[in-house]
């Protein structure tokens, strides 16, 4: 190999070292030349050469990071800044090149970003932002942006107030490109460290919004990036933006023109401001305007933010959900979900998955066709797998999606059952995130409602034990969902299932729930009783047997006029009583002899609730039912009822305003004849 001469090349001027000399040089040697004691001119040429070596070349970055180049370069920067006097030309160049080099090391190589953060260069770079030399400011801002956009950005310490203030001061610069760089960094400060309110306290949002009016597209984009980050889930700042009509109309214009990345950024901003709770009507209307744009973006590019924007836009808006379904959004989202591993860079995949699952979940919440689409596109297995994802947010999104799908009986009986959703779903009942627990228990409510094999599976997998545990939770929503699920599990269940449920739930716990402080939980507990006593005499027996009729006396208390129970609770309690009355003579007589009967009479007289009157009429029908073999005891009950004034009461109800009531009353009166 020929040996080449070292030194400046003829074409590049004194500062330039041709690559040939550099290739030969060991990285170690180069790093040595950056260290202390080397004359500045030499240091300068080596640093420039190093910069040119590593920019765009990950392999070279790796080699130099391993040789300790990052420490050496950040030392150069620190030493230069420590000098009290102003910079001479060489020092200025050294500072600019060290900033550029540190920026490049942060970009595309995790190890590099780590080394830069460890070297403590962030403090020096932020200090440079305050320089009077615009070249230094630009170099520092660019390096900081690369660092804040790096894969290790989440490990950065939050920027100090003074650094934030310096960044905000760059926003009105005449050099708009540097202003844009500053806006991008501020956006990251919001995303990573949640510093939006801090930025706003220095008047940052107003300054950022001015960038939206820039003629330079990159600057507009950086401005929108920052506006989107600042207004996301921040009502106060979102309102601040929505009050600025110029900003809103610029955003709207940008959402309809320009490149897809510009459109998406504008959509993110408008979504943030238009989905705030209690947004003004004209701002909320923008959601409708935006929907076609977002759907189109979904068709065009696999951009990680699109599913999230769509999900937020559709949240709580059935009409928009329907439009999204009609625009084929479900197929596009599901197709993307199935091929997600390849479509986005690794660090974005969790985020994309979360967005896709949430969007699918929201669109299919009220739409059976949408659920069917997901099944037909074979999305179920992937969704069920996502319930086991290591990422908490993906699990929550998958759970939301499963909840929507579980509203479809067809899905439960076929694909959800086949995909064995019960296993992962049950483990989510003990998920560390309460949000996930709540959604999982709500999903379970739907799953166990009507399909016996699913009930069996969930029982066998210890699902009721988990639910029983949750029914003791301090979180009233968890108590509600778990009792609800148990109630659904018991709905039309056979005796074996009922027995096993009660083994897990236990009678004392049922009594506790019947006395719960939350009326909604109480209702579910009463319905558990109602479902338990539905069916045959053998179903009724254990309920009335327990502690000599403890359950009955609770029902009695819930029905007494002094209890203050709501009409709903009383209705379910009356139906429970009615179910008991369909049992043996012994069961019927237990009711006849209890105080419940007078409450039933009260319910017949309740003018507010026709449901309550129907339920009460059912009690009478069951009590007066004549079995062919034992008419005598029925006659005795009828006599007792007549004495209590039931017949007269029923007679007075023959023209009840509710047709349901009328039919039941006529049927009940037949027994008295």
């Amino acid at each position, binding site marked *: *190999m020929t040996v080449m001469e070292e030194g400046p090349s003829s074409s*590049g001027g004194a500062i330039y070292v041709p690559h040939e000399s550099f*290739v030969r040089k060991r990285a170690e040697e180069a790093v040595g030349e950056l260290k202390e004691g080397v004359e500045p001119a030499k240091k300068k040429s080596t640093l420039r050469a190093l910069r*040119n070596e590593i920019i765009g070349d990950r392999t*070279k970055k790796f080699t130099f990071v391993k040789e300790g180049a990052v420490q050496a370069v950040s030392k150069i920067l620190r030493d230069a800044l420590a000098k009290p006097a102003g910079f001479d030309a060489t020092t200025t160049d050294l500072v600019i090149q060290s900033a550029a080099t540190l*920026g490049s090391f942060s970009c595309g190589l995790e190890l590099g970003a780590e080394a830069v953060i460890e070297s403590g260069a962030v403090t020096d770079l932020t200090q440079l932002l305050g320089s009077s030399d615009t070249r230094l400011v630009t170099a520092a801002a660019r390096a900081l942006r690369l660092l804040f956009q790096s894969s290790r950005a989440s490990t950065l310490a939050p920027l100090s107030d003074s650094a934030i203030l310096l960044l905000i001061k760059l926003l009105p610069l005449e050099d708009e490109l540097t202003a844009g760089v500053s806006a991008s960094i501020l956006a990251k400060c919001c995303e990573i460290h949640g510093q939006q309110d801090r930025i706003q306290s220095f008047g940052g949002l107003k300054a950022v919004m001015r960038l939206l009016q820039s003629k330079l597209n990159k600057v507009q984009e950086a401005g929108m990036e920052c506006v989107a980050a600042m207004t996301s889930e921040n009502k106060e700042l979102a309102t601040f933006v929505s009050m600025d009509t110029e900003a809103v109309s610029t955003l709207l214009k940008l959402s309809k023109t320009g490149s897809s990345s510009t459109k998406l950024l504008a959509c993110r901003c408008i979504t943030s401001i238009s989905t705030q709770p209690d947004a003004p009507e004209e701002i909320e209307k923008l959601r409708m305007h935006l929907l076609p744009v977002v759907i189109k973006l979904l068709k065009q590019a696999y951009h990680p933010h699109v599913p999230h924007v769509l999900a937020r836009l559709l949240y709580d808006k059935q009409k928009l959900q329907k439009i999204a379904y009609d625009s084929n959004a479900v197929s596009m989202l599901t197709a993307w979900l199935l091929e997600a591993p390849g479509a986005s860079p690794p660090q974005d995949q969790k985020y994309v998955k979360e967005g896709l699952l949430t969007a699918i979940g929201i669109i299919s919440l009220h739409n059976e066709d949408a659920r069917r689409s997901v099944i037909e596109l074979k999305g179920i297995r992937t969704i069920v797998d996502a319930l086991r994802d290591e990422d908490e947010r993906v699990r929550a999104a998958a759970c939301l999606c499963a909840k929507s799908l579980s509203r479809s009986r067809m899905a439960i009986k076929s694909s959800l059952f086949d995909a064995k959703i019960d296993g992962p779903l049950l483990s989510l009942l003990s998920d560390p995130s309460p949000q996930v627990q709540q959604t999982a228990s709500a999903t379970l409510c739907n799953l166990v409602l009507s399909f016996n094999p699913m009930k069996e599976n969930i029982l066998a997998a210890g699902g009721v034990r988990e639910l029983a545990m949750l029914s003791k939770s301090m979180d009233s929503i968890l108590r509600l969902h778990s009792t609800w699920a148990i109630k659904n599990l018991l709905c039309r269940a056979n005796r074996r299932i009922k027995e096993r449920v009660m083994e897990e739930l236990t009678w004392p716990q049922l009594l506790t729930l019947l006395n719960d402080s939350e009326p909604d939980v109480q209702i579910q507990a009463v319905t558990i009783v109602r479902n338990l006593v539905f069916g045959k005499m053998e179903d009724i027996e254990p309920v009335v047997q327990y502690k000599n009729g403890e359950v009955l006396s609770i029902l009695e208390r819930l029905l007494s006029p002094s209890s203050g129970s709501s009409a709903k609770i009383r209705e379910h309690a009356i139906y429970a009583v009615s179910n008991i009355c369909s049992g043996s003579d012994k069961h019927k007589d237990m009711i006849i002899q209890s105080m419940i009967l007078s409450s039933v009479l009260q319910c017949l007289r309740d003018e507010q609730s026709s449901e309550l009157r129907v339920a009460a009429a059912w009690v009478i029908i069951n009590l007066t039912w004549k079995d062919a073999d034992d008419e005598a005891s029925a006659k005795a009950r009828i006599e007792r009822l007549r004495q209590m004034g039931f017949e007269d009461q029923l007679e007075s109800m023959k023209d009840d305003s509710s047709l349901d009531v009328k039919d039941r009353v006529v049927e009940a009166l037949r027994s008295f004849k």
Partner: protein
Amino acid sequence: MKDFWSEDGPGSSTSSKEGFAGVKKERMNRLIMNFFVTEGYVDAAREFERESGTTTEVNLETIKDRMLIRRAVQKGEVEDAIDRVNDLNPEILEHDSKLFFHLQQQRLIELIRRKEVDKALLFAQEYLAPLGEENPGFLEELERTLALLAFEDPLVSPVKDLLGVQRRQQAASELNSAILHAQCQEKEPKLPNLIKLLKWSQNRLDDLSDTSYPKIENFETGETSRSSLQTPMVE
């Protein structure tokens, strides 16, 4: 010449001084300025600005750097161009891996052109191979470039196109576009496309109907086919 560029007073271009298509002169001037700026004719742009009063958002100083960079690639001094573009904005080559590969490839081509075979091999191994490894899409081009070394006289080889002026030109304009993009300027001047569009429209018109219209026959002078209707575009 001065007259040709000079700006009319306010409002004066609305009536008689319009071109036949009703294009305002300020607009024409802006198009011309756009051409100078994008193509990098700094001196012409400066002179035009002085004479016609047409302003540009673009800092003319940055054009100078851009032209030096472009010329460096055209002359085969790719390292020099890389150094300069990193001075201008280090993010350009950082984020555009395709452009970066093409520049490194051009460096290899220049080494081969200078018949520095050892250096070329070393360079390919140390600089280009890792890029190919990270992005397999580059491998084919890399192989084609290395094929230059296999021929005794690469200039008559099937891959001789790599050694042509065209190749340098391509790399130069790719880099030029990237710089323009980083500065938020248009990657191409508007004028050539407008002329293409005009030519296409005229052809379509000729295909579709026989109706006469002021067809531009000579694109250099702007002379139209129907002299009777011709109005001078500029006085």
